[in-house]
């Protein structure tokens, strides 16, 4: 398959050897599961249960609130302990509403949903995906059903399945592709069907030859599915860059890949889709990689959602030493976890306990304008320049220099010899700009309302005046007529 060039990018040490050959193990049930109401992009789900309720595995316990939201299901059978604030994986470190479930140990399923079979109608597939609470499992956590319904608004021709897994350490997608090949291919076929596209391309980085071979074999029976080995280069898994590498189409700024006819889903999502549509099972568990220099026995686990990180680390033999950094996701774009009590959520594809030798953190030096960040940026930006604007508090100049075109992949900061925290400064600036936009919107809205009120009052006053004048005229006329009689 012909590939197209994308610019920039870096080659981080892969570090995948620790778990590459580790078959996925089922993590044992923890004593207490915490299911945050927001495990997806969009509105938090509305709880359907109250403390004391008994639930079965797979039973919906929170319903989507609005068009962009996702349902949540009990990941095992047990009793609802509480519904309230709990530690969650959020950069703020603040607690958020969650349902706490005490497993009864029986792990008893509720009645499964009916299998729709491989030839289900597109609408039925999307509906089932929504019912099953499936979100983008690569970490983006956008509700998948919304993306499967894009055919209504866009003319689509290609489904791209992202099996690049370009983040160092992570091997869960690799294992999934090797261990559940047939299910994945069926899932991909279902998703292509839901989208109404005649072509599905599964992109796999060249560092996963076994997965590529397995998937190629399984896809042979499907005319519409192709496997594309892509170069091992970070950030190959970036949606817009992957689409460009595979199709040569460049997504315009501020647009979606759907605008150029392509929808991208993570390969792990296809497995959840298979389970939901064919087996009638909602999303109650996920496969993730537990690795990093501080993990005694790195491995891949299939984990019931809501399992605390501490439990996963214990299953992997505990920590050999205190990690410098505990992360959810890969080292390039992962989020620091502020507590081991934080639960496993739908978008968590890795738990990494990193040592200083993994992070290679060092003191920051002055920017040399060496241009390393410019060469590394896959978006054609000048990261050092944007960072300099941010440092000066000149957010307008940062925006002008392309702040919002930054995808936050971290290639620049990874490569910077002066170890300048570029991504940190971009996050800061994006947050500031977003807050500023909200403030402006509020002010504009207040102004609009005030103006509307003034106009309304003026109009009412004018109407009142006109009415009085009319009444007066009528009265005068009546009086005049009475006088005439």
């Amino acid at each position, binding site marked *: 398959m012909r590939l197209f060039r994308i610019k920039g990018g870096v080659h981080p040490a892969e570090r995948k050897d620790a778990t590459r050959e580790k078959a996925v193990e089922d993590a044992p049930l923890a004593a207490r599961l915490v299911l945050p109401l927001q495990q997806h992009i969009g509105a938090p789900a509305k709880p359907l249960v109250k403390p004391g309720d008994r639930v079965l595995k797979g039973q919906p316990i929170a319903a989507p609130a609005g068009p962009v939201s996702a349902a949540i299901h009990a990941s095992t059978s047990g009793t609802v302990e509480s519904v309230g604030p709990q530690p969650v994986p959020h950069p703020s470190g603040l607690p958020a509403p969650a349902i706490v479930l005490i497993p009864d140990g029986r792990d008893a399923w509720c009645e499964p949903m009916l299998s729709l079979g491989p030839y289900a109608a597109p609408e039925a597939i999307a509906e089932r995906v929504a019912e099953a609470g499936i979100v983008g499992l690569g970490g983006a956590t956008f509700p998948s059903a919304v993306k499967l319904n894009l055919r209504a608004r866009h003319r689509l021709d290609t489904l791209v399945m992202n099996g690049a897994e370009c983040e160092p350490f992570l091997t869960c997608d690799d294992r999934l592709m090797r261990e559940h090949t047939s299910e994945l291919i069926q899932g991909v076929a279902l998703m292509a069907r839901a989208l109404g596209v005649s072509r599905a391309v599964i992109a796999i980085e060249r560092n996963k030859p076994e997965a590529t071979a397995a998937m190629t074999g399984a896809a042979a029976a499907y005319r519409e599915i192709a496997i594309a080995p892509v170069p091992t280069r970070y950030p190959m898994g970036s949606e817009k860059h992957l689409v460009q590498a595979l199709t040569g189409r460049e997504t*315009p*700024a501020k647009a979606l890949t759907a605008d150029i006819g392509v929808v991208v889903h993570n390969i792990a999502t296809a497995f959840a889709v298979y389970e939901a549509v064919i087996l009638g099972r909602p999303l109650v568990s996920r496969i993730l990689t537990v690795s990093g220099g501080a993990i005694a026995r790195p491995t891949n686990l299939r984990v019931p959602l809501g399992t605390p990180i501490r439990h996963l680390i214990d299953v992997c033999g505990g920590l050999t030493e205190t990690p410098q950094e505990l992360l959810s996701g890969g080292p390039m774009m992962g989020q620091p976890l502020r507590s081991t009590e934080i639960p496993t959520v739908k978008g968590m594809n890795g738990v990494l306990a990193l040592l200083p030798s993994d992070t290679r953190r060092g003191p920051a030096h*002055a920017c040399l304008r060496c241009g390393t960040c410019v060469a590394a940026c896959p978006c054609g930006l000048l990261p050092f320049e944007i960072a300099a604007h941010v440092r000066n508090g000149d957010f307008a100049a940062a925006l002008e220099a392309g702040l919002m075109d930054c995808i936050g992949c971290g290639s620049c900061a990874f490569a910077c010899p002066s170890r300048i925290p570029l991504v940190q400064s971009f996050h800061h600036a994006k947050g500031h700009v977003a807050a500023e936009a909200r403030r402006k919107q509020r002010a504009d809205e207040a102004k609009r309302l005030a103006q509307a009120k003034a106009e309304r009052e003026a109009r009412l006053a004018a109407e009142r005046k006109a009415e009085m004048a009319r009444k007066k005229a009528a009265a005068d006329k009546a009086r005049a007529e009475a006088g005439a009689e």
Partner: protein
Amino acid sequence: MIEKRPLIAGPFAHAGLSTPMVMAWVMIALTPATVFGLGLFGWPAIFLFVVTVGTAVAAEVACLRLAGKPLATLGDGSAVLSGWILALSLPPWAPWWIGAAGAAIAMVVGKHVFGGLGQNLFNPAMVARVALLISFPLEMTRYVAPRPIHSAVAPDVREALAVTFGIGGRADLDAVSSASLLGHAKTELARGVPLSDALAGGFDPWQLFLGNAVGSLGETSALLLLLGGALLLALRVISWHVPAALLLGVAVPAAACHALDPERFLPPLTHALAASTVFGALFIATDLVTSPVTRAGQLIYGAGCGVLIFVIRTWGGYPEGMAFAVLLMNAATPLIDRWVRPRVYGRDRKGRPLPVREAGR
């Protein structure tokens, strides 16, 4: 366990290279040519080198103190490197105060006046070299023939003290002075002597390439400089864009002119493989701070340096043009960086979003 500590964003991985390492690798790459040069010109050269590097460090410390900046930044090695590069570009038997004054100019005027590392517009070592060349033309153009430290003609330490510090009487340098190939060719051409006569005998190209030649302290062995440069390229401390463009920028016009009139213009390889050109291409023009940030910009900058070097050598008043060429292109760097920008993903060259063109139409 809930931790309270400052939020930090990723990435939680790094390529591994750091600023002090960049500086250290450049120094390692310079070491063969430096050791060779010090050996070739003996004790006076060693004294000059120590004085220059020492003054650069002292000036950096003084500037950091004055600016109230932490002295820890000294550890990045940039001051040592600037002094080092300056020393390599000086006539090896220049008096100590040339090195000291040059190093002070490089650090104070060339670097800290602009705000320190990363802020300077011009290459500090070249600022110093040009200031010295204009202020002290005699001392800056008096070259000696190689006197290897182990040979009979080499000055001993006592004689060297006289050469460098003027201790125990002044040395008569005019008696031992000589000219580099480029300098000799320039003088002869100015007298109207055709190149075939001027270069008849005495200039073996292979010896020149190996470095057994007249020249600045570090600008004798093109071979060792190329080896050091190859190391930096292999480690990706520098990219090939500036050196390649610079060498082509010198060689292409030189080849054209040489083809037109071989009696008036030196052959392209004499220009491009002169140790001074190689030193400049690999270690001076590649200065990260003062060269453009984009690959395309670096090509323009390198080519500009190369062409200017050829122009200055051929029609200017000096036999060497590296320092002037680099400073001129340093001045053009902000302009290059403003004009030559990569296209932002999803946008056209003017920064407007690409038009949304739906597939299959």
